[in-house]
Structures are given as structure tokens and as C-alpha cells.
């Protein structure tokens, strides 16, 4: 399959996400402006200018009205999707590491890093009306995290729970009403880099620095599957139409003393969801892959890498025809 190469960022990509309908692809990077592209042909729609630090995280509400981004400049900003104007801004006390809109779009959750005496905290805010007073509103819920900091976050089904992935590899589920920790799973042995839900929000996949990705049940954190590689996994996604998952990763630049001099050899790997067996690799990135996402219709997927490129791949016929014997 011939990929679309989207080159709009000068620094490493940190996260990419499709909107609910899949026609737009949003990307954030360590350069301070997230971009939005048409996923059909790769044409860039625009950039969101305003941040003054590396943008770590982004999310879009289900109606594609609002775009939210959190950055290392200690702000969480909400923008209008179609025009790119900044609507609201929350100033925090340390870098915003993760953020997510709730299923209904009425609430958003974000977390801040542990830095300079401030602990890592989970904030839940009301997003029904976004205007200049947004930053002055009190958060609905504020949960300080005393142990390992949060590296990844998801809303549970029906917005009643919040799922967090931590730097020590634990995954926790929190009750929204009470702010209490409901359950904890200690399966990974190193930092959880990314978590993504499947289409019906019953399961989610975690990507970890311990070279594995794991599939969990979203309600009780039961560990379902493990996908093993030999490189740290930075991101993982579940296909909405087939029993496939894609993993993207790679050794961090500072850990490698000798790299393969063959160019373009960082690959995204496809595993079968149930059999845990790898069946394909897509090469092409010039650096570790930091974020992967399936298009909501499952017919294509994208990957963003350390090299600053976003590659959009459309699957060809052989992908659909491939089947494991069982």
C-alpha cells in the first residue's frame, strides 16, 4: 500500500487521533502547533497556534466541534475545530501530559505531571460552555496522585469511570462520582505509554516500555491478551472491523549505541487480537513510532513518528483476505 506522507511538523510527533467520523486526522508534536489534515487525501486543513511548549496530548469531542490540547507550557487549551481559534485556556502548575473528552463531550479529564513540588493530579472539568471564563471555573473533580505519575488516560464506558495508565506500569480504574480508586492492575513492568479503546469501549489496549502491549477488559481490568515484541511499544490501537491490533514503537535514541544503518526500518507491527501472533509489519519510518491510530472505518491506519512524519496507509485487498487457519 502506498502511504500518504504528511509533513507538517518540525519535531517528533507525540500523538495522532482521528475524529469520530474519520474524515479529519489531528496530530500534535514537540513543535508548538498541532495540525489537522483531511485523512482522505492528506491535505492540511490548518494549524492551531498558541501553545509555547511541546504539545503532549490532544483529543476531539464526538461532534468535531472542539479540539483540546495539553502542552508543556502548563496550559490546556480548547479550540474551535473549523476555524482554529482558541476558545478557552486553563493554566496549570505543571505540564499537561494527558487529556480526553468524555463520551458525551460534556466533560474533559486531563492530568498534570509531577514537577517542582506539585504532585501529579487528575482534573475533571465541565466543557459544556467554553468561553473566556473557562479557566476560572472550578474543576468538577480533582484527584492527587501520590505514587507513579499518570502517563495515559481514557474515559470508561458511559462516562462513569476513568482509566489511567502509570509510569510504573500499573493501570487503575477510578470512580468519577467519588474520586476513589476502584481497581488496579499490575501487569506491565515498565511505563504505560499509550492506551486506546476498542470500538464498543468494552476493552482497551495498553502499550508499554516493557516491550509488550496488553489487552484489558475496561470494566474489571482483567488481563486478556499479551502481544510481545523486542522493542519498547509506544502506541497500540485496535481495529474497529477485524480482530487485529497494531503496535508502534522503537528504541529511544539515547538508548541505542549502534543503530541499524538501514534507513526506514522502524516498523508498525500487526498482531492477531486473539491468537497474539504477529502477521505483518509495515516499514517506512525513519525513527521510532510514537503514535498509531486506526481510521474509524478500519480501512486505513496512521502512524506518527519521532522523525516528524505522519504516514497514512490504506489497506489493500490482501489485508482483508488474510486469515489465520483455525
Amino acid at each position, binding site marked *: 500500500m502506498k502511504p500518504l506522507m504528511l509533513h507538517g511538523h518540525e519535531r517528533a510527533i507525540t500523538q495522532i487521533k482521528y475524529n*469520530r*467520523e*474519520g474524515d479529519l486526522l489531528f496530530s500534535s508534536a514537540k513543535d508548538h502547533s498541532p495540525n489537522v489534515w483531511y485523512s482522505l487525501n492528506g491535505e492540511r486543513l490548518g494549524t492551531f497556534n498558541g501553545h509555547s511548549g511541546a504539545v503532549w496530548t490532544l483529543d476531539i469531542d*464526538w461532534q468535531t466541534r472542539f479540539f483540546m490540547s495539553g502542552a508543556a507550557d502548563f496550559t490546556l487549551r480548547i479550540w474551535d475545530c473549523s476555524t482554529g481559534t482558541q476558545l478557552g485556556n486553563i493554566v496549570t502548575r505543571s505540564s499537561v501530559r494527558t487529556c480526553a473528552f*468524555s*463520551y*458525551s*463531550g*460534556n466533560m474533559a479529564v486531563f492530568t498534570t505531571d509531577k514537577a517542582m513540588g506539585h504532585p501529579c493530579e487528575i482534573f475533571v472539568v465541565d466543557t459544556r460552555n467554553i468561553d473566556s471564563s473557562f479557566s476560572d471555573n472550578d474543576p468538577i473533580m480533582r484527584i492527587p496522585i501520590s505514587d507513579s505519575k499518570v502517563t495515559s488516560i481514557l474515559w470508561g*464506558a*458511559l*462516562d462513569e469511570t476513568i482509566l489511567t495508565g502509570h509510569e510504573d506500569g500499573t493501570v487503575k480504574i477510578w470512580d468519577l462520582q467519588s474520586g476513589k480508586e476502584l481497581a488496579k492492575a499490575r501487569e506491565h513492568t515498565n511505563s504505560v505509554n499509550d492506551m486506546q479503546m476498542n470500538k*464498543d*469501549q*468494552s*476493552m482497551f489496549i495498553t502499550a508499554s516500555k516493557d*516491550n509488550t502491549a496488553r489487552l484489558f477488559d475496561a470494566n474489571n481490568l482483567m488481563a*486478556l491478551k499479551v502481544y510481545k515484541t*523486542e522493542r519498547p511499544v509506544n502506541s497500540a490501537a485496535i481495529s474497529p472491523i477485524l480482530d487485529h491490533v497494531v503496535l508502534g514503537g522503537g*528504541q529511544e535514541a539515547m*538508548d*541505542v*549505541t*549502534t543503530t*541499524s*544503518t538501514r534507513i526506514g526500518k522502524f516498523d508498525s507491527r500487526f498482531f492477531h*487480537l*486473539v*491468537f497474539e501472533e504477529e502477521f505483518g509489519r509495515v516499514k517506512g519510518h525513519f525513527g521510532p513510532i510514537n503514535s498509531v491510530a486506526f481510521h*474509524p*472505518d478500519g480501512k486505513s491506519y496512521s502512524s506518527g513518528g519521532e522523525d516528524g512524519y505522519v504516514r497514512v496507509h490504506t489497506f489493500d485487498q490482501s489485508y482483508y483476505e488474510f486469515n*489465520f*487457519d*483455525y
Partner: protein
Amino acid sequence: MYGKFGTIINEFYPTDEKNVTKGFIFLEYKNPSDAVDAVNATNNYKLDKQHTFLVNHYSDFEKYSNIPDEWTVPEPQEYKDQGNLHYYLLDPDAYDQYCLICSGGSTVQIWQNAAPEPTVVEERPNWTETYVRWSPLGTYMATFHARGVALWGGPKFKQIMRFSHTGVQLIDFSPCERYLVTYSPDGPSDQRRVIIWDVRTGAEKRSFSLDGVSLWPVFRWSPDDKFFARIGQDVLSVYETPSFGLLDKRSIKIPGIRDFAWSPTDNILVYWVAEDKDVPARVCLLEIPSRQEVRANNLFNVADCKIHWQKSGDYLCVKVDRYSKVKKEKNDAKYSVSFCGMYYNFEIFHMREKLIPVDSVEIKEPIHAFAWEPVGSKFAIIHGDQHSINVSFYGVKQGQPPSLLKKFEKRQCNHLFWSPTGQFIVLAGLRSMHGSLEFIDTNEFVVMNAGEHYTASDVEWDPTGRYVVTGVSSWKQKVDNGFWLWSFQGKKLKKHNIDGFCQLMWRPRPPSLLSAKQQKEIKKNLKKYTPQFESKDRMRSTRASKELIEKRCQLMKTFEEYRQKNIQAWNEAKTRRLELRNNVDTDELESDTKNVEEEEIEFLVKEEHTVIEE
């Protein structure tokens, strides 16, 4: 020394008129069993060159003076069955075992190289404290501990024997596995640095206190375990077993001796003496125990020599570094000598021919590696400078000087690995050369396959010559650790990525019990045997895929059950979802029929040019 057997209550050193000890002492132990141990362990113990301990129980004197005139049959000692130590050779499919050290050295596993997947035979964490060694014929595995060495063997890898030598760092087995040499540089003040043990009984046979070891193994064994020797300043000391004393009670004086090596099959050793002003360097073949010089070769302008025996003992090669000019520079009242214009000679000794003729092959370029074909009569060398590395193969035949068989030019390799059965060789470019591998059949000098294992640090053939393992050890680098299994033809069979992989060592096999004639018979009738093996292989692979398919079927079934529950919950929660999104149905991309807009987009599909008029 005797203190370690138990507490000594009494010591009596009888002296004569001049107050010099008569040469014997009386010792009394607290426990009679300690006295028995002391006698057993030290009787006939060689204290040094001239003195041997002869130890008896005091009660023995009574016993011997009271020998009854009738002879009673001594009771047989109970036989401790150690199990079948060679069980692994009886494997019906001839799978080899290998031991794997991983997790940075803390876990040792023994695997059997079965098809299609290798199986673990034994795994023990912290089996050893540093590393592991197989004995030369593969019977035992030795592990290292702070207090000594342990030997394991048999089908369950039970502990066969234990040798206590505190702080042991290096060991060496004798070729027939009868003796074990251990070296501990920082032992307690006992001063016993090197100890030689009997493997079967675990008894200490001899110990030496050597200050510093330049090259291990210090003691080198003759192929039948009858002799062992070491080199000293201008002297070669040869010892014999089982008495462990010096052969003929004296060392052999060889002024200027630099290095020596035993033939792998005969009791002959070769040594070389460095050049001294006008006296040329010499390479000598000495027969033991007769100490007869079987052959000697004088060489001029020698800077250094390296000894390479061929594994079947048919040929010996001495690589001689020769110079054409000597530069003597004077700095600070000392002459420093440097050699210029180096060229290299290979002196090939035909060991099996009468009077051992010697042939010479000269190469003008620097040599990087040399290796004999283990079974056969070829040798390979890597030569050339950094930019143009060549590999040359020479064949040696009885009564003829070596002839150049084939030269491969401009290869990326720095190591040669012959198959233990000969004929096949792997040219490897390890470390700096990106792990490039070439598999060559030397019967036709054809490159069967070329592959690459990036950053490979080690290459090992299995003892039968069927497989090659290339590994990236975590002792050399921390990334991408693991090993790959190749067939002898260079086909990549399997990749094992193991975090913290340190080392893989194949279990050696003892030499085949079949005579050369029988082996030839089998090779001739190979066609008869191959269909048997093929059908077995085919059955095995279908069985494997059947197992795999069953496993997958099971996984899918369990998962589908789980998934059904989720789908049910999803359906039940539909109303809640609609609530959250203002009654907009977003479950499927097309489910929201109200908010859909149809847009017609035109794409340029094809351009066609038709020329209407010329």
C-alpha cells in the same frame, strides 16, 4: 594443612640428636573419623618435587603386626549409581542439547534442539554464580560458586561431584574428562592457587602455588590424559599421571622457550624457542615420554610464532611472523627493537609421513585469522589489509606442498568458523563488520548463502555440523540480545529474541563409536535412510500445525464467549449512550441518518490523448 580434617589434639615431631626432625610426625585427632579422612586424602600426596606424604593410622601398626594368617574376603563397597551420564546421546532423533545463559547471567537453562521447536530440559535460576562450562566430551556441566565448582550430569542434571576451592575463577578439564584443574587467584592464605582433582572420586591430587597466571590453561594435557605440562622461565615441566610427579623427576631445560602445544591425537608436543642474537629460532617436536626430538626446524628473522594443530593431528601449522629489517632505536639507554617489513610464513608439518617433512607457504600481507578444517586437509586464512580482505583456501596432501585451492577476494569478514565435521565453513564479519555471514561449501568452493545478523558477537556450530547459531550477547552489548539458528547451508531457521541473553554453548559429543569404514557404509546407503527421515519430518510438522490449529481454535472459542458478553452489555446500554449524545445514534458510522450530507466529489481518474489530425 592437616588442620582441616578435624581438631588436632596432639602433635609430636620426633627429633634426633641434632634436634632436626627425623622426617615424620605423629598427629592425634579428636575424632577417629577425622583421622580416617586425613589418611585417605593425604596418603601418597605429593608435597613437592621430592617429597611424598605417606600416611597411616596409628592403629594400622597394630593391624599389620597382627595380620591373621587366614585371609577374609573384604566386604564390597556399595555402588552408588550415578545414573546414565551419557543418556543424551541416546536421543532417538539425535537432537543436540545446548545450555543457555540469560537474564544477564542469573538463569541457566538446558534446551534440547528439537524440531520444530526446541524444548526446555532443565531450568534453574542461580544455578551458577559466574558462568558455565561443558566438559570436553559433554558428560558434565560445571558451574561456578564462591566456594568451588560443582559438576552436574545425568538425565536429571543431579549434582555428580563437588570440588571446594574458594574463590575459583578458571577451570580446565583434561581431554578424557578424568581430571579437573581449578585456579583461584585470590584464595585464602593457603597459597594453593592451582589444584588438580580426580573427577570421579573428587579427591585432590596435586596442588601448585603459582603467582599470577599469564595464559590459562597453565597446564596443558596430552590427549590421553597421561601427561600434562607447563611452561616456565626457560624450562618445560612435564608431569605424569596418576602419580602426578615430574616425568623422570626433572623438568626439561629449554632456554628461551616461548610457547608449546600438545598434538590433539598423539603424545607429541611442539614448542618454539625465540631467536637470540645469532642463534636462529627453533620449532621442535618432542615425543613424550621418551623426550626424543622427532623433528626440529630452524628459522631466521623470526618476530613471533603461533601454533595451530589440525584437529585430527595429521598436520601441524606454525605461523611464523618474519621481518626483513630490524630497527634498533636508542632511547634512555635502552634499545627498543621494532620490526619492519613483516611477512608471514606457514610452516606445515606432515605428521603422518616418515621423517615429518615440512612445507612452507609465504604470504606477504597481514594475516587476520587461520583455521584448519577439523576433518579433512584444508586450511583457510583471512589476509589482506583493511580495505581489501581476502580469504584463501589451501589443500594439503600427503607428499605434496600445500596448494592454493581458491581465493575469495574483497570479503567482509574477520573470523572463520569451520563445521566440526569439515567441508562447510562460515565466514563471519563480527562486531565492526555488521555481522555479515557467508556459508561456503568447500568441496566446490561455492557460496551457498549469504546472510546477516546485525551486531552478532558469537558464532557456534553444533557438534554434528547441522546447525549454526549466531548470537548477540548481552555481555558485549545491551540491545537486541538473542540468537538465531541457521542450517549449515545458510538458511535462517529461527530467531530467538531473548532479553539478557549471554551465551549459548552446545553440549559436546564424544567421538563417534563407528569406525571409518562403517561411516562410509552409511554415507553410501544414505538414499535408503532418507525416505524414513522425510516421512518422520513430515509427520512432525503436520502434527505441529495441527496442534497450533487446535490451540487457536480453543483461544477463539474462549474469546468469542467473552465477546458475546460484551456485545450483550453494549446492546443493553444503548439507551444510556443515546442520552449522553443528545439522542444522536453514533454506534455505527452510518447509523446517524439525520446528520448525513451527501457530497459529490470529482476525482481525475484517467487522461487520454487522442491525436485527431497529424
